[in-house]
């Protein structure tokens, strides 16, 4: 078994005095796609915030590429190649598409290099490069967020609620791109509340409830248990 790209061991974290994660265990293997599913308030986004260094865990171990990185700054992790596409828009609404993409030159890459990658991935963005990001449709804003993420050549991509507020056809288009990225060998952790589409691209899936990962397994098995898990029926998870 290879060294996991991302591993959480008994991670505890929260906001101030409120604990949200009560001992999360999670493993993402290199080049695989892990779907983290769960109802609203389960702690999925907090898990991503911990993995990207935005929230420091109060207990447990966060390992990236086999190294414990508790205490690593989010900008340092981002420079290394840990990239989070946050829930919602995650774009600068009052900047143009091109300016948003220019923001991703922080890692030292030239603008043309970054822009070429972004427009190749989502040609529609190239047509709208002078448009304010806030005036794009929800789907286009998600494309922009993903394009910005990919422009930094991440080794670990984390997507938070990619489908939120989007039409099913747009969600399918976005997940089509995710599938292509996964085929290219990128390690991807996807957090979703609604599971149908994401289970089609995931290698492994996990159910999160009340700040803990209650079940991990192949997407086909998880799909069967998901409804019971959401409704709070004991499905015999580990």
């Amino acid at each position, binding site marked *: 078994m290879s060294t996991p790209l991302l591993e959480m061991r008994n991670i505890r974290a929260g906001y101030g005095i409120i604990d949200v994660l009560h001992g999360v265990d999670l493993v993402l293997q290199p080049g695989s796609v892990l779907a983290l599913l769960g109802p609203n308030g389960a702690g999925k986004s907090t898990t991503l915030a911990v993995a990207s260094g935005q929230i420091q865990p109060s207990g447990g171990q966060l390992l990236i590429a086999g190294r414990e990185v508790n205490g690593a700054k989010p900008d340092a992790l981002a*420079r*290394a190649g840990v990239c989070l596409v946050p829930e919602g828009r995650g774009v600068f609404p009052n900047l143009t598409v091109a300016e948003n993409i220019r923001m991703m030159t922080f890692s030292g890459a030239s603008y043309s290099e970054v822009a070429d990658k972004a427009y190749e991935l989502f040609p529609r963005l190239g047509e709208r490069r002078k448009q304010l990001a806030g005036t794009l449709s929800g789907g286009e804003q998600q494309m922009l967020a993903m394009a910005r993420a990919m422009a930094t050549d991440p080794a670990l991509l984390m997507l938070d609620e990619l489908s939120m507020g989007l039409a099913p056809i747009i969600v399918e288009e976005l997940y089509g791109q995710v599938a292509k990225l996964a085929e290219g060998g990128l390690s991807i952790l996807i957090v979703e509340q609604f599971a149908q589409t994401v289970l089609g691209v995931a290698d492994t899936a996990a159910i999160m409830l009340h700040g803990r990962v209650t079940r991990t397994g192949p997407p086909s098995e998880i799909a069967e248990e998901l409804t019971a898990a959401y409704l709070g029926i004991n499905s015999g998870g580990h």
Partner: protein
Amino acid sequence: MTDETSPRLQEFQAQVDDLRLSGGKANPERMAVRGAIALFVVAVALGLAAYFNSTSLDDARDQNEMIILALVAVVLALGSVGLFVRASMTRYFRYWLVRLVYEDRANTDRLIEAIREDD
């Protein structure tokens, strides 16, 4: 799954190995505030101890030592106040920044909505 020896993964591994870690403390400002309060209590106790001790001393040299100890207590107290203010302000400004970002986003949404209605 991909080959673990792919150049990008090797580069990633090297970058992660080079990361400087701060020790993984959760909520450093809260710890700093608590530390500042503890330091202030120690400083006050030290100052009081120096004062009460000095009243029973006859030799001026011994009293001078207590004065020095009291000055150390004053410096500690001032340091703890500085630490408390710094940590409190950091927390406050962080929330303030988040609020500004949120309001800016909400304002942009309102503008975009208005522009769309005009169209």
